[in-house]
């Protein structure tokens, strides 16, 4: 039991797990039910509606992953983040990213991790990046980091000072479901952090300080209707804790990394893939996030999305690194797909900004 508990506090990388390796994950996603014809591959599926090959539309979002280090080890994490991950963006790569931020046509800058705040150059980077005057500057904060150590206590004020749009994970409005997915004690710390964000104005009705929450299912099932979930979350968090927030993004768990490992270990993998394929919605393909996003990794490489980053699938372009960044050349590429892409096209679709189809 103790051994099991310890295992849960380590990343797949630390445990030398098979599914820490990108090629093992891709192999799993291409074999079995997708190789024997039981289910169509993602490329076969989008061919049916003439959407193959997938190509980018106008670039709108620059998503930068500043490192895989995190204070939490969530069971569903597609990054396989955790305290034992040491991959962190250097100041030098950040300087290269700043050049891109100054010149990009994208209207949104989205910082993610790991826990981005754990990067020692995080505050400097936010200060510099906010000078570029980008329209929407998102930081994905896991909430508990705000309460993890004294040095982070002033983060709500820091975010406010730089008009950062805070997007935070909150899998459920009950303690049990939240802690099961994200670790013991996470719920109480998250509630405290949300109250502190509210206290400086974040998430309050009519406030321009944006606070959005991300919901993702705590198990092998798909998210329900985003608008209904938002209504339930708002009611429960306000009644129980006096918490306000703006929008809820319902995000589907991707069958990669730790969630893939969980699906296989719990014998839910095939049923989950069936659910994703059954819920396939061609309208979601039209707005899928890889069509308006570029994802940059801690070491400066470029990807179609954060999921492809974790699967080590670099963009199919002669430009693959921030040091040679050119938006026009990059935008003329084919997006790399595999069966995990079904995760973004199920039901109302799923992206880092939540549902994508009506």
């Amino acid at each position, binding site marked *: 039991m103790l051994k099991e508990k310890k295992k849960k506090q380590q990343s797949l990388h630390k445990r030398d797990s098979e599914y820490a390796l990108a090629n093992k994950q891709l192999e799993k996603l291409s074999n079995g039910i997708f190789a024997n014809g039981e289910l169509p591959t993602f490329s076969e599926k989008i061919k049916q509606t003439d959407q193959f090959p997938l190509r980018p539309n106008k670039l709108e979002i620059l998503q930068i992953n500043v490192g895989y280090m995190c204070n939490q080890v969530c069971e569903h994490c597609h990054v396989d983040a955790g305290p034992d991950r040491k991959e962190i963006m250097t100041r030098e790569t950040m300087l290269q990213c700043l050049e891109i931020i100054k010149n990009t046509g994208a209207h949104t800058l989205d910082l993610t991790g790991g826990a981005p705040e754990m990067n020692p150059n995080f505050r400097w980077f936010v200060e510099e990046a906010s000078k570029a005057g980008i329209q929407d500057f998102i930081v994905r904060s896991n909430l508990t980091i705000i309460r993890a150590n004294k040095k982070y206590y002033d983060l709500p004020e820091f975010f406010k000072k730089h008009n950062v749009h805070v997007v935070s994970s909150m899998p459920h409005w009950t303690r049990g479901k939240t802690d099961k997915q994200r670790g013991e004690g996470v719920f109480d710390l998250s509630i405290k952090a949300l109250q502190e964000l509210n206290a400086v104005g974040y998430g309050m009705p009519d406030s321009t300080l944006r606070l959005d929450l991300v919901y993702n299912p705590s198990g092998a*099932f798909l998210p329900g*209707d985003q608008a209904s979930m938002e209504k*339930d979350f708002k009611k429960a968090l306000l009644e129980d804790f006096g918490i306000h927030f703006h929008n809820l993004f319902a995000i589907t768990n991707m069958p990669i990394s730790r969630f893939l490992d969980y699906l296989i270990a719990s014998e839910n993998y095939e049923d989950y893939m069936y659910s994703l394929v059954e819920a396939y919605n061609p309208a979601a393909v039209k707005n899928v996030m890889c069509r308006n996003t570029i994802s940059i990794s801690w070491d400066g490489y470029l990807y179609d999305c954060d999921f492809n980053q974790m699967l080590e699938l670099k963009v199919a372009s002669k430009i693959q690194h921030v040091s040679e960044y050119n938006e026009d050349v990059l935008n003329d590429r084919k997006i790399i797909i595999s069966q995990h892409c079904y995760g973004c096209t199920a039901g109302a679709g799923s992206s880092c900004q939540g549902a994508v189809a009506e």
Partner: protein
Amino acid sequence: MASQNYYDPADLKKFGNITQWSKELGEKFFEYYGKVFEEGALSAREKSLIALAVAHTEMCPYCIDAYSKDGLQRGITKEEMMEAVHVGAAIKSGASLVHGVMMMNKVNKLEM
């Protein structure tokens, strides 16, 4: 190949195939079914809990699978789900027990 069991979880995925032997009636059923579960005077969430309770009183393993998952997807808690099952169980046992009045009526009529 035919399954060796009367109930096979994989059969739930084949439910849509019932239209193959009677297209019109099958399609009408699924259209009706879909319409019933839309938001209406009752929310889709409330309907999901009713369906879960009925799934238990009907003792339909396919329906229990389907509406346990549906409940999770809607963010319905375990406590809410179990209460719904108890509502079904209470009605089911009450329905048996209320027939006791019938027995009493009969006995009272027959006894001197």
